[in-house]
């Protein structure tokens, strides 16, 4: 099964129950005493995800309220809304769709149930690879159990050196899954570029031992917000450079939008950071592809590939342009 042409791989991060929309967003509509989020259904018609039960009824209490819209769509089992979120990401250029339901419940069995349900629901909508994302191995296994391999190969998000994650490398091999690997250490988060590289090198050796194909390994050196430490961006970028020098053929990505957490005009920072990351050696990005580029993300991807020697004679870029600004 072909995955995608060589070139920038976009991992859409929007299917995460932590996702929220401000109650003041123009997408939030009030009709007949009810409040909800307007969206376009699969047939093109206007639909509304009802959020009346979770938004405070008192307008004074609504100030600053954020609607957890993905969690709401799950609880209401509103497949049309989920479909609109998935389709918007694909339209914006996502190749892989990340699924994270961790915050829907503190109870493992409930998280696992939601992951199983989500994998099935989203596979009805798209044939794209889904990254089964959880900080709890049990939830990842639940997602893989529900996965229909005839539609696509799954991805595991993510393996690292933390306790309890050892089994995920074997699992990736058993389930023919792509493996996302992050730079978290056994005792704590990495504080420098060197620590990121060291942790990921150790993971690489573990994947070597399990014969995980190089093309199936996605290294994430971990992006932290520059709002709390000005050097976070440099630590990440340096780690990407060093990893790329050591492993020419592995995939390297990051949760790029994390860099701008807590700061205004996040799109500006995210965009610049994405460019810097690609220049440093990233060939994949995990972003909100709908919001995070001033250009359509697909166009950005063609441009980035042309600029980094992945598009001979800029043929793909020109092809994209000729297809009529689609």
């Amino acid at each position, binding site marked *: 099964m072909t995955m995608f042409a060589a070139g920038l791989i976009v991992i859409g991060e929007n299917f995460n129950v*932590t996702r*929220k929309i401000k109650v003041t967003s123009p997408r939030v509509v009030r009709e007949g005493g009810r409040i909800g989020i307007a969206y376009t259904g699969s047939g093109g018609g206007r639909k509304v995800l009802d959020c009346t039960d979770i938004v405070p009824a008192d307008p004074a209490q609504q*100030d*600053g*309220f*954020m609607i957890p819209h993905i969690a709401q769509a799950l609880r209401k089992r509103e497949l049309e809304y989920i479909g609109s979120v998935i389709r918007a990401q694909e339209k914006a250029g996502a190749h892989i769709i990340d699924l994270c339901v*961790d*915050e*829907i*419940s*503190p*109870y*493992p069995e409930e*998280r696992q149930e939601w992951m199983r349900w989500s994998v099935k629901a989203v596979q009805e909508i798209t044939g794209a690879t889904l990254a089964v994302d*959880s*900080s*709890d191995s049990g*939830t990842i296994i639940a997602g893989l159990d529900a996965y229909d391999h005839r539609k696509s190969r799954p991805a595991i998000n993510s393996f690292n050196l*933390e*306790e309890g994650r050892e089994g995920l490398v074997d699992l990736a091999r058993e389930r023919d899954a792509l493996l996302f690997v992050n730079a*978290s*250490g056994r*005792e*704590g*988060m990495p504080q420098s570029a060197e620590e990121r590289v060291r942790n990921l090198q150790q993971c690489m050796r573990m994947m070597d031992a399990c014969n995980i194909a190089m093309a199936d390994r996605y290294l994430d050196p971990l992006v*932290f*917000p*520059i*709002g*709390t*430490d*000005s050097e976070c961006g440099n630590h990440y970028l340096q780690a990407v450079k060093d990893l790329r020098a050591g492993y020419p053929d592995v995939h390297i990505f990051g949760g790029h939008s*994390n860099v701008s*957490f*807590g*700061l*205004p005009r996040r799109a500006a920072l995210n965009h610049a950071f994405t460019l810097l990351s690609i220049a440093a050696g990233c060939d994949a990005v995990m972003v909100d592809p709908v919001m995070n580029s001033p250009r359509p993300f697909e166009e950005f991807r063609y441009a980035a590939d042309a600029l980094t020697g992945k598009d001979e004679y800029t043929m793909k870029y020109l092809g994209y342009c000729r297809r009529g600004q689609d």
Partner: protein
Amino acid sequence: MTTEILSIIDPVTGGTREISGPSNQIAALRELIGLVERGDHNKVPTATEKALETGLSALEVLMNGLQAGLAVVGERFKRQKAFIPEVLMTARAMKAGMPVLKPLLTATQGKPQGVVVLGTVKGDLHDVGRGIVGTMMEGAGFQVHDVGVNVAPEVFIAKIKEVNADIIGMSALLSTTMMMQKATIQALRDAGMRDTVKVMSGGAPVTAAFAEEVGADGWAPDALTAVEAAKVLMGTDWNGKFVSGAALSRARAPAAAC
């Protein structure tokens, strides 16, 4: 010398308060507040010394200068007019003045607002958010002992005993580790310490409802409200009722997910 009036944000109540004094004292405080507000940690030590030279007491310089400067940016953050790095820079500037004042504060004046043990619960390695809470609590006059990440209940308990802590602040940044807060509170009960230490619960996925359900005394959505909630818990008139940080100030964007 003429008497002047300066309007400051009271670091304890968060409300506006007027102070009056000789113009040179007011000018010195105004200068100090401005430097802290702008995060100029290089100039703060000298300005702190200068303020003392005008005859202000160390406590006045602390409350009406350094902490008042921090409060200006804190208030701005609450109204979403300031951002995390600005708050952190201000806290650094405020702390730069402390070595000058510390030796001059009397035992009572220098007594911390409270002694806090902070840590991220077992199984969770996230530390950024907790670090900010620690910085802001120190800025507000708490003595903070940060025990780091992946902290087992027995490690929390040992530290609480060692430093005779008033408050334990637990962070969990993963929905998969939130339950460890409940386990830690249970360990405090088992150790017979639940009534001698106040428990604060926080972290991106932790809601007020969850914190109350697992038996915490207080919860806050971000570092600044955590400070406010801690002050309420330390107050002599606290009645044992659950303190929700969001109810103290306006709801705002959720805390860091990292």
